């Protein structure tokens, strides 16, 4: 018991090193994750943007938070994918029959997800800068944005762990992410919710993406964040805790 606890962090480090190699050796996963959100951003800014009344003269600024969430939602699908591949290959059985904390195996994947999503978020912000994104936010606001995005990534990654562990096929392992990628469309990410019909609007205003997007948007444009940020944080933490507990339950059932 003692030895596995003592080495918990170094074991996670080894696991992180392992799956980071998987990412650096298949950069296409990061490129794929970035391309769709960037294409969306181009489409919305240069094709549809002219006709959208978002009440702002810089539509890139308005759009960016939602695009980042879409990128994260598609990025975590790869966590499910990598986890699924590990389950299939027998390497999990090797790890599980070794004297290491079993949760270290999962945390390695979760931390990898945080790092790889951070990379794609940075790439997308750089592209947005070229497209005219400007922010007057200071260091503290940027840190707050980074914190929210990290929390979103963590929460969604723990959701991804569940299909990663339970799926019967590769397609099944990543299909769960489609609704998550789609969710920003029915929110304030692309257009203000005011123009939507009542029912849609009610959904849009009360789903997590809207509060998260609004909070990030306010932080980036130096506006007062109000209560949005607390609602956003509550959503993230709530999802994180439920998904984590469920994932751990599934994991324990799968692996003794």
């Amino acid at each position: 018991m003692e030895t596995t606890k003592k080495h918990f962090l170094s074991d996670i480090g080894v696991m992180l090193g392992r799956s980071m190699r998987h990412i650096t050796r298949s950069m296409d996963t990061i490129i794929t994750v970035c391309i769709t959100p960037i294409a969306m951003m181009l489409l919305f800014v240069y094709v549809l943007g002219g006709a959208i009344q978002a009440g702002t003269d810089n539509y890139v600024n308005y759009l960016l938070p939602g695009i980042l969430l879409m990128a994260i939602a598609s990025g975590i699908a790869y966590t499910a994918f990598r986890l699924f591949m590990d389950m299939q290959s027998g390497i999990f059985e090797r790890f599980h029959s070794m004297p290491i904390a079993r949760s270290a195996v999962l945390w390695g994947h979760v931390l990898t997800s945080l790092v790889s999503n951070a990379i794609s978020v940075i790439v997308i912000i750089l592209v947005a800068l070229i497209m005219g994104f400007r922010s007057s936010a200071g260091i503290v606001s940027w840190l707050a944005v980074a914190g929210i995005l990290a929390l979103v990534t963590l929460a969604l990654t723990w959701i991804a762990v569940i299909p990663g562990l339970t799926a019967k096929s590769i397609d099944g392992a990543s299909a769960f992410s489609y609704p998550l990628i789609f969710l920003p469309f029915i929110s304030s990410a692309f257009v203000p919710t005011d123009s939507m019909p009542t029912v849609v609007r009610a959904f849009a205003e009360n789903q997590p993406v809207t509060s998260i997007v609004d909070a990030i948007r306010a932080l980036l444009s130096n506006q007062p964040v109000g209560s949005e940020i607390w609602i956003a944080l509550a959503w993230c933490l709530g999802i994180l805790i439920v998904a984590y507990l469920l994932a751990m339950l599934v994991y324990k059932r799968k692996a003794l």
Partner: protein
Amino acid sequence: MEKAIEVKDLRKSFKSAAVLKGVDFEVKRGEIFALLGSNGAGKTTIVKILATLLKPDGGTATVNGFDVAAHSENVRQSISLTGQFAAVDEILTGRENLIMIAKLRHLKNPRQVAADLLKRFGLVDAADRRASTYSGGMRRRLDIAMSLIGKPQLIFLDEPTTGLDPEARIEVWNVVKELANSGTTVFLTTQYLEEAEQLADQIAILHEGRIIVSGTLEELKKLFPPAKVEYVEKQPSLEELFLALIGKKEEK
């Protein structure tokens, strides 16, 4: 404590299908024990229970003196599992695979451990290539090399030669023999009678959820009527022919 494994009345069902219906056997320290059985006989289920990957429904199993269910942590300290499907990370190189396991075993000098094993298993030339480019035999050797890291007292090899060509199979056999010579207990499952005959000190046959016979090869042979002398023209088997031809080629 002379016994490496002691299994009593082990039972396991999946849904309503009973796979193990009361399995008993013992494995002494330092011997090669072969569990023989056809596909689906439950060999892998036994390995998984002994390697703490699966919980038994009934009965007891102790490994190196520790109960697998109650003291799984202690069991894991003293075993290594080489599963049915090569458990190597295909995206990493052979060297990186070995270093990773050495780090997880918290050894002092992971690079040195890896270098020694690469040499011992004839993988030096392929050391810095991704494992996905390895042949079946090389992958299996890497797999077994990974299992040796940290010098576990007991090694499980679940069908180590299934899917290998005859040459690679003999390579693996040599590795297993060498292991046993160095005092490691080897628990091997196989569906090939010849493999058990070649390697094992003790053989147990698993059939329909129970061990139907067990003993040394000599003891098993005694179960049959005494040998009769018959004259049969002996043709070389295709395998012998294949190996002879390949051997000749390499000598050139």
